[in-house]
């Protein structure tokens, strides 16, 4: 017995084939190459992030030139603090060596950001200063060397 195939079936089959191949062609061009390499996302996005520029060079880059400051800093309580905590992003300065490309904060308020009196700080975590009482007419760096805070300047 010959199987009867209604005439619309081949026509529909052709239509389906056309649409499916169209979909596959479109998909081929629309889905990025790296999609699905690690998971359901574009793996090249990781490279986009990895390519971003670094602004903070890390203190090893600082010590490459400023060996003297490294030695000085080692001797006192600020030894664990990295250069860029106070001096700001240093990559530009590391590449250009221009003094204009690095911060040199000098005001009381800057030191106060860490050293201001606040009940939220652990007593032994940091020396806390009452900025409204402690030598109010002077800048901190007039007496303290920030790289060696307890060697008082005369």
């Amino acid at each position, binding site marked *: 017995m010959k199987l009867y195939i209604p005439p619309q079936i081949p026509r529909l089959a052709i239509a389906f084939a056309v649409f499916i191949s169209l979909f596959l062609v479109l998909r081929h061009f629309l889905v990025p190459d790296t999609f699905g390499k*690690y998971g359901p996302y574009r793996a090249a996005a990781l490279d986009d992030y990895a390519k971003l520029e670094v602004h903070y060079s890390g203190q090893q880059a600082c010590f490459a030139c400023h060996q003297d400051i490294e030695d000085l800093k080692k001797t006192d309580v600020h030894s664990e603090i990295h250069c*860029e905590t106070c001096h700001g992003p240093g990559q530009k300065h590391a590449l250009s060596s221009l003094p204009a490309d690095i911060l040199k904060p000098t005001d009381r308020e800057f030191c106060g950001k860490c050293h201001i009196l606040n009940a939220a700080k652990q007593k032994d975590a940091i020396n806390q200063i009452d900025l409204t009482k402690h030598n109010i007419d002077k800048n901190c760096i007039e007496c303290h060397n920030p790289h060696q805070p307890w060697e008082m300047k005369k």
Partner: protein
Amino acid sequence: MSQSASTMGNEKVTSSRRKFLKTAATLTAATVGYSWLKSSQILIFAAEPKDVTLPWYGIAIDIKKCIGCGSCAKACKSENDVPKEPFFFRTWVEQYTVKNDGSVDIVSPNGGIDGFVQRVPDEEIFKSFFVPKMCNHCAKSPCEQVCPVGATFLSPEGVVLVDEKYCIGCRYCVQACPYGCRFIHPVKKVANKCTLCYHRLKKNLAPACMEVCPTGARMYGNLRDKNSDLVKFLKEHTTHVLRANLNTGAKLYYNELSSEVR
């Protein structure tokens, strides 16, 4: 005639029953097998990708050590070109003050970038502490799950990232993050968040916030490396994650976390 008819009937029933059972068993086995494979794949992927050669990053913050200087929040903005206006933060610091009457005062002026000025007088304070906040880089992050276009993903190193070319800026993830760690970039109009300084990690540099933290209150490390400083810290201290009840798989562990912290 009647006998043969009944035999035929019996055979028919038997054969179709056998066939049915066979088909059903095959289908069930296939479904169970497939779903098992698939679900375990998803679980493995969500919990920890298989590539063990890569680190699996976690973060620890020691609340006892934080002095609220805001260096982290400031450095984050400089390093990652985050808009300078308040309300756009990838990391920020909050001050919690529990008063003697039990009420809690929470402040974060400009994310702590300009430092904190104590606004509750000493005699009213029961306890006070700083809480630095940042992306928890959840292993099962809600923000990743709700993204309708798959722009947010968990990198093989366990860092939650946004594909800025895919993001359509629908803000669903901003709503979904229980830690409030996302915002819409006012210029790019796409979701923006902490990348754990992915570009720095790839260059073997510490994330900017950890580079500048003067007290070492923040640390990051490889949770897979059982000898890493981070794992050692987690072993030695009683740490908690925020909103553990939400099962986000948060990988930011706080030491000395008070119950007041939300």
